[in-house]
């Protein structure tokens, strides 16, 4: 599914390129983007794009731009697994919290897409290398990823593509949603999105990117008011309070390549064994890089694929 989507996108890329080359003479395209640190002007179609944020990498590839540099995913050694193939042979320019500025410079970027956590000092340094976009989009809100996609796409000169991509994700979500509705009775679609830690689970926010994707696919994500406004997840829950995450479905994320390991660890805890999702075999181990760290349209498609796979087989 994911490959098919990337294929579609690369087709889109070819079309876009053709259109671009055709109209290049007429394009003296200059755009102004409102960012966290004021207005930033970008000219033409950037070709050497460096992304310092997973959501930016995802958005850029989705609108048909192949970035040349990116940061590793949190806790990984490379970009997240779901996007590795699409990202191709991409240079690594540091970790999310420690950007290697020289590596960025060595790539001679003409546009840098950065995370919202970029500090003013870092922004000023990066801006001297290339126009740097630090979007002023609040994290952990329902429409964060769409707004980020539009912002980054505008910087990349592909604003029109952004709406198409959002539409494609929405279509795919509707498709999965139909299957979800067919497979699961209405009163059993309540879901918790959880990261299992040895000292107790973190319940993810209802407004986390992944939760919004789950919701678009027909699940009802509950964080039982455990997550404070603007936070991605709760504090590690006391084992005594596991009943607060006791929904019909539990999506269990881990940074292990193999999520089953985490599930095994969780199942050793007697408190976990009692969860009704566990009893009904509806605890779904998922890749934490994708489910709790990534964001963007490609991630949404990959998550929708995971959801589809998790559904009980229809006769």
């Amino acid at each position: 599914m994911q490959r098919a989507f990337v294929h579609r996108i690369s087709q889109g890329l070819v079309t876009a390129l053709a259109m671009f080359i055709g109209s290049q003479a007429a394009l003296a395209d200059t755009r102004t983007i409102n960012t966290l640190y004021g207005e930033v002007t970008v000219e033409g179609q950037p070709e050497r794009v460096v992304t310092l944020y997973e959501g930016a990498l995802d958005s850029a590839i989705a609108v048909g731009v192949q970035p040349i540099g990116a940061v590793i995913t949190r806790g990984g050694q490379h970009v997240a697994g779901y996007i590795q193939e699409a990202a191709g042979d991409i240079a690594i320019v540091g970790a999310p919290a420690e950007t290697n500025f020289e590596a960025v410079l060595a790539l001679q970027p003409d546009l840098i897409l950065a995370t919202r956590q970029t500090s003013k000092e870092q922004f000023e340094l990066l801006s001297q290398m290339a126009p740097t976009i630090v979007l002023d989009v609040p994290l952990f809100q329902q429409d964060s990823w769409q707004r980020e996609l539009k912002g980054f796409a505008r910087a990349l000169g592909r604003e029109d593509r952004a709406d198409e991509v959002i539409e494609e994700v929405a279509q795919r979500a509707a498709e999965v949603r139909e299957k979800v509705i067919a497979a699961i009775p209405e009163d059993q679609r309540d879901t918790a999105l959880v990261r299992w830690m040895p000292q107790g689970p973190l319940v993810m926010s209802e407004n986390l990117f992944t939760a919004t994707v789950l919701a678009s696919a027909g699940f009802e994500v509950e964080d039982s008011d455990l997550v404070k406004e603007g936070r991605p997840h709760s504090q590690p829950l006391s084992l005594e309070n596991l009943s607060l995450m006791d929904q019909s479905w539990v999506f269990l994320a881990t940074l292990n390549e193999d999520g089953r390991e985490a599930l095994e660890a969780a199942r050793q805890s007697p408190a976990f064994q009692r969860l009704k999702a566990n009893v009904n075999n509806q605890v779904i181990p998922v890749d934490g890089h994708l489910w709790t760290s990534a964001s963007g349209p490609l991630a949404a498609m990959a998550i929708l694929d995971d959801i589809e796979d998790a559904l009980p087989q229809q006769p």
Partner: protein
Amino acid sequence: MFQLVVRHRNLAAQLGLVVALTLAAVASLIFGTVAVPLDSLMDALAGQGNAIHRFVIHELRLPRVIAGALAGAAFALAGCLMQTVARNRLATPGIIGIDNAATAFAVASVVGTGISVAPPAMALLGAAVATALAFGLAGANGTRGYRFIIAGLGIGAIAGAITQVMLSRVAIDSANAAFPWTVGSLNARSTTAVITLAFGLVIGWVTALLLGRSLNTLQFSDPVAINLGTRLTRVRALSLACAVLLTGLAVAVAGPVGMVALLAPELARTLCRAGKVPLTASALAGAVFMVTADMAGRLVLAPLELPVGLITAIVGAPYLIWILVKPTSRSLT
């Protein structure tokens, strides 16, 4: 005149350290993800030549080398002062909680507890608060001996615990953002903090030199020092104030980089003539240590960078263990 008449050995040691610092700085400027050959480096320093090299040197490496050298010198000078005052080579600002408190304050601002003061300012505030508490809790003769140290240890433990709570209760991404503050890093730090540190270092260094002779007498017992005309209370208070100022400002730039305050004075003492407190040599050695460690941190795992604090810890470990287990060690007395 204070210490203008240095004996040959001390002068040689200081000159040697200046040469080492120059070499370390030049190496730091040359090596990195973008290699800048020596002749290009000269052009770039003069503001000419390849634009990329100019940018790498002026915007990335030079500020970092300067920040590293200043912070290393400040940590080391603070360490040397405190070791002399406490008559104990393990009594560094880091051990008695100043670093920990500065970190706790900085982390509080990074992880979004609603405090919007810039982390460097918070670090300085933390250092001051910790010292004030240690003095207050140690009782009347606060500047003397162990009480102050143990009180600082307790405060450091509390500050460390609070940092842990903050880090374990916030989002993982915020905890990651605060990580450089908990181990020490020189990557793209605040310019204002560096400039402040430069002024602070000059003040601290001049004060230390002015105290130089009195500090030398502190190597003897109290009665001897008093007989030699040293006003103990004043010297101790001034030295400690200097140490706190220097540490706070250095943490504001680089985070709590460990071991520099311990190892650099140690190295300086080895190089210099016994009998004098090697203030300038300590500062120079600290600068060399820090600049070299930061360079190593940039190079070993490239393109990923290791924070400088981790390198100093790894390098410092064997040395610390050695001075602890060496049975005839004079280092601890």
